[in-house]
Structure formats: structure tokens, C-alpha cells
């Protein structure tokens, strides 16, 4: 009897301690995430005051304007999707080689080496490509070989290259992790059953890599849409992505309500994408469990 009342007392005390421990975090979320997002939403139903900035109003005009200016949005979606696919195509063979072909301690070293560039300043990596792609870098070598004058910097190609360079580890690592669990005997079994290397990849490797590919796609696709620096430094400052559009709206044209509407749509879109991703992985995991039972 005494024991049980003591246990109940201990539980409620523990709950009190727990509430105290999560209090600072909760306050931080409310103060610096929820409150700013609410202000952003409130501003998105406002009007642009004549000298820029915000004037209070209650109108959906900004969201209506979004539909008249759909091209930046669709451009962003298309470019982000294209660059994510390029990233995937570059990353997959690397992840496959690391997980399946390399053995022993070499493997950890090579995985770490994929991450090392990632731990150097983002700005500096991009700056290095400015030097390399600039008129005195690779184009000069191409000219010397005989390709004539080629412009690389400030082109969509340079933007794609910068993106692949900066996001490659985010694509390689999840695929590597999912392939790492791949049982080598599965591949041998597939070969013994007469499947060629391509059939083995298609029927054994790809289904197993699917969860990793999916998380890689999400990890790369979301930040690309919000990308600001790469298009500014490598793309010649043209508007390629939502990130640039947002920065322009807030810093140059000072159309805060329209920018807020765009940002709100962006956040909602991200949440939809992530929710879809979670639903899809759950289904993949379930499907994987069922096939492994067979």
C-alpha cells in the first residue's frame, strides 16, 4: 500500500520534472518558430504600403497574384526536380561501390572522405567553383584544347554543377546506409539463379536501395528549392529558385506581403512533401517486410 502511493507520488513528481525540462524548448519553439510563422501568415493577407513594407489589411490578393505569377514557382519545381535527378544519377554508383565493392577499413575512410568537403564552408566551396569555371579556369583549358570560347560561369550548367557538388553527400549517405544492409548472399543467390548483372541490380539492389533513394531525394530536393547562394554566385544572380525570389521580394522590391504569401505557400508545400515522404516510406517498409517473409 505504502509502496504504491509512493510510486504514484514519484510518477507525478517525475511528470513535473519532465514538464520543467521541456519548458525552455517549448518556449523557444513558440517564440521563434510559431510566432514568426504567424506574423508571416498575417502579413501575407496584408497589402504592400506605397513605400514598400507592409500595410494592414485582410485580403487574399497576394495569393491571387501568386497564380498570375506561376512561372517562378513551376520553374523552381522543375529545376529542383531536374537537379535532384542529376544528383541521384551521380551519387548512386558511388554509394553502390562504397557499400558493395569496397571492403574493410577502407570503406569507412572513403565514406568519411565523402563528408569532408561537406564540412568546409559552403561559401568557400562555391567560391572555388567560381575560380574553376571562370574565364581563366576550365574554359581556358577547353580553348587551348580547341573547343573555342566556352562560357561556363553564370550559366544554368554552373548552377547544376554547384548543386550536385554541394548536395552529393546528402544523396550518397542515405543510399549507402540502405545498401550497406544489403546481404551479399542475396546478390550471389541472384547470380546463381542465372540473373545477369543488370537484372541483379534492377531486381535485387534497387528495391533494397529504395528507402535510401527516397530519403536522399527529400534531403536534396527541399534545400535546393530554397537555394539562394549557388544561383547568385554561379548563376549570375538570375532568379532560378524560390530562395532567390524570396530574397528579392524582401530585400530589393520590398514587397513584404507578396513575399510572405510566397513563403507561406513554400512552407505548406514542404510540409505536404515531407508528409508524403513519410507515408511512402511507411508503405515501403511494410512492403519490404512482406517480401522478406515470402
Amino acid at each position, binding site marked *: 500500500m505504502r509502496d504504491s502511493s509512493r510510486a504514484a507520488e514519484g510518477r507525478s513528481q517525475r511528470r513535473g520534472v519532465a514538464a520543467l525540462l521541456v519548458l525552455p524548448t517549448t518556449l523557444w519553439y513558440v517564440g521563434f518558430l510559431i510566432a514568426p510563422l504567424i506574423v508571416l501568415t498575417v502579413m501575407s493577407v496584408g497589402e504592400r504600403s506605397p513605400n514598400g513594407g507592409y500595410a494592414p489589411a485582410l485580403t487574399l490578393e497576394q495569393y491571387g497574384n501568386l497564380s498570375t505569377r506561376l512561372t517562378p514557382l513551376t520553374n523552381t519545381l522543375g529545376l529542383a526536380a531536374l537537379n535532384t535527378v542529376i544528383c541521384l544519377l551521380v551519387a548512386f*554508383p558511388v554509394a553502390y561501390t562504397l557499400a558493395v565493392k569496397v571492403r574493410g577499413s577502407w570503406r569507412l575512410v572513403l565514406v568519411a*572522405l565523402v563528408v569532408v*568537403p561537406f*564540412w*568546409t564552408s559552403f561559401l568557400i566551396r562555391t567560391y572555388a567553383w567560381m575560380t574553376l569555371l571562370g574565364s581563366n579556369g576550365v574554359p581556358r583549358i577547353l580553348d587551348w584544347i580547341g573547343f573555342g570560347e566556352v562560357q561556363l560561369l553564370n550559366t544554368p550548367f554552373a548552377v547544376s554543377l554547384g548543386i550536385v557538388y554541394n548536395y552529393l553527400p546528402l544523396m550518397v549517405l542515405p543510399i549507402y546506409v540502405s545498401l550497406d544492409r544489403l546481404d551479399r548472399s542475396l546478390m550471389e543467390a541472384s547470380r546463381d539463379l542465372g540473373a545477369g548483372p543488370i537484372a541483379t541490380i534492377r531486381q535485387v539492389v534497387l528495391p533494397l536501395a529504395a528507402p535510401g533513394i527516397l530519403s536522399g531525394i527529400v534531403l536534396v530536393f527541399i534545400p535546393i528549392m530554397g537555394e539562394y547562394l549557388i544561383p547568385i554566385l554561379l548563376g549570375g544572380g538570375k532568379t532560378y529558385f524560390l530562395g532567390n525570389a524570396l530574397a528579392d521580394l524582401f530585400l530589393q522590391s520590398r514587397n513584404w506581403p507578396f513575399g510572405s504569401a510566397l513563403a507561406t505557400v513554400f512552407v505548406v508545400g514542404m510540409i505536404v512533401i515531407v508528409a508524403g515522404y513519410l507515408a511512402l516510406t511507411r508503405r515501403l517498409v511494410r512492403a519490404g517486410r512482406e517480401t522478406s517473409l515470402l
Partner: protein
Amino acid sequence: MTSRSESFDIRAGRRAARLERTGERLTRVYTVLVYGFLFLPILIVVIYSFNAGRHVTELTGFSTQWYESAWSDRFLMRALGNSLRIATITAVLATLMGTASALAMDRLRPRARAYLELLTYMAIIVPGIVIGIATLIFLVVAFDWLNPWLAFLSAGRAPQLGLGAGSIVAAHTLFTMAIVNVLVRTRMRGMDRTLIEASEDLFATPWRTFVYVTLPQLLPAIVAGALLAFTFSFDDFIIAFFTSGQDQTVPIYLFASIRRGVNPQVNAIATVLLTVTILAMVVAGLVYRRGQRRAATATPNAVATAAPSGRRS
């Protein structure tokens, strides 16, 4: 394969093996090329940081002048000081709050926990540029409202609130705290709960159980989280770009000097940062390995230490 008698099968098998060997060679060459692609720009930066000439295109001789000019650049040094201070405060706050909330979340009522989880994932999902912009707008609105009150209440003596290092820390801590929380909770899920129960059964107080049993097991995740928080904060450009006010950080300084034109000093700064990061990574790796070994071997002893009888014996 050899046991099969049909010559057709042998030929097909040989063809498959040949195809596989070429494929393997191709992927190996390809992987080497990708690694070259990853490290070429970094190599270029390091080489040109020691270049004597002003032009980034010609190697004219060895010199450390760009290191000297970076070292004596007052603006750069102030930006470096700001960055280090912001990243340190962010890492400390994010580690403390992220770990505390991770430890307590399982004890909350299910609904409260679900809300907190949602907020954590939101903090991670919302893109940096939106965080930066939303924080900027919110703080501008809040300061516009607060400053007259502050001035009124303190009879004009209180300093005006404004954007600066503080607002960068607020926004950085939001994101990194969520990362620490997720890392620590992932680790908790893989943790050996029997040791905690053993410690409790031996009448160790919750605090002693935490210090001697739980904390050592969670340490790798906490250290990794702290390092991630520091690196993220130190390297972040986009959030600081919007919320920094007058205070410069290293990424903002670098961005400005890159946009101004070719500046070999940037290479020197980059090389120093690269060296420091690699050293930090090596140290972190060693600490992590030692921590793991200790967690693997010493936990039963930890239970003994945590239990009051263990101390007496």
C-alpha cells in the same frame, strides 16, 4: 557454373562474367573521378592561398602574405569573433535544451509529446531562408512595439532593442536544438534500458542513475549534436544574412568580399577554416570511439557506482 555441361550455358556465363568485370572496372574509375570532383576545388583553394601573385590564375611563387593580410584585417577578425561567439552560445543552448527535452519527452502525456514532436520536425523542415525571413519580420514588428515601452518604462535610459548577434543565436538555436533532440532520442531508443532498471532496483536516486548510467550512454549523441550545432551555426549564411542587423559573421564577410571581386585573402581564410575543421573532426572521432568503448565495457560498473551500496563497498 562449371558443373553445368551445356556449352551454351558456359558461354552465357562467361559473357555475364565479362560484362560484370567491365562494369566493375567502370564503376571503380567513375568513383575515383567523383572523388576527384569532390576534392579538386578544395585543392585549388589551398594551393592558391600560398600563391604570391594577386591573380587567381597564375602561380607566381610561394608566399604567406594572404595569411598575414587576413590576420591584420580588422573587419575579418571582428567577424570571426562574432562567429565564434554566436556558434559557441548556439551550441551550448541547443545541446542543453535539446538534450533536456529529449530526456523528458517520453515522460510527457501522449498528446503533449505529439505536439512537441510536431514542433521539432517543423523546426527541421522549414527551409532556412523562410526561418531567416520570418524571424526578421517578427523581430522587426516586436521591436517596433517593445522599444517605445522600454524607453517609457526606463525613462529613455534603456538601450533600443535591435537585430544583431542575439537574433542570429535565437534562429540558429531553434534549428540546432531540434537536431540535438532527434539525435539524442534516436540514441535513447537503442539504449539498454535494463541497466537503468538495474540502477533503480539498487536504490540509486534518479539523479545518480542519470549521471552514472544514462548520460555516459547518451554522450556520443550529445557530443555529435553539439558539434553539428556549432558547425551549422558557424557555417550558416542565409539565416544570418537576414537577421544579423549590423553584426557581421564570417560567411557574411566572405560573401561580401567574394561579390566585391577576386580576393586571394579568401583562400587563406578558407585554408585555415579547413584545417581547423579537419582537426576538430579527428578529435571528435577519437572522443566518439573512446566513448563507445567505455559505454560498451563500463556500464555494469556504472550501475554499481550509481547504487548507494556500490559507493560504500
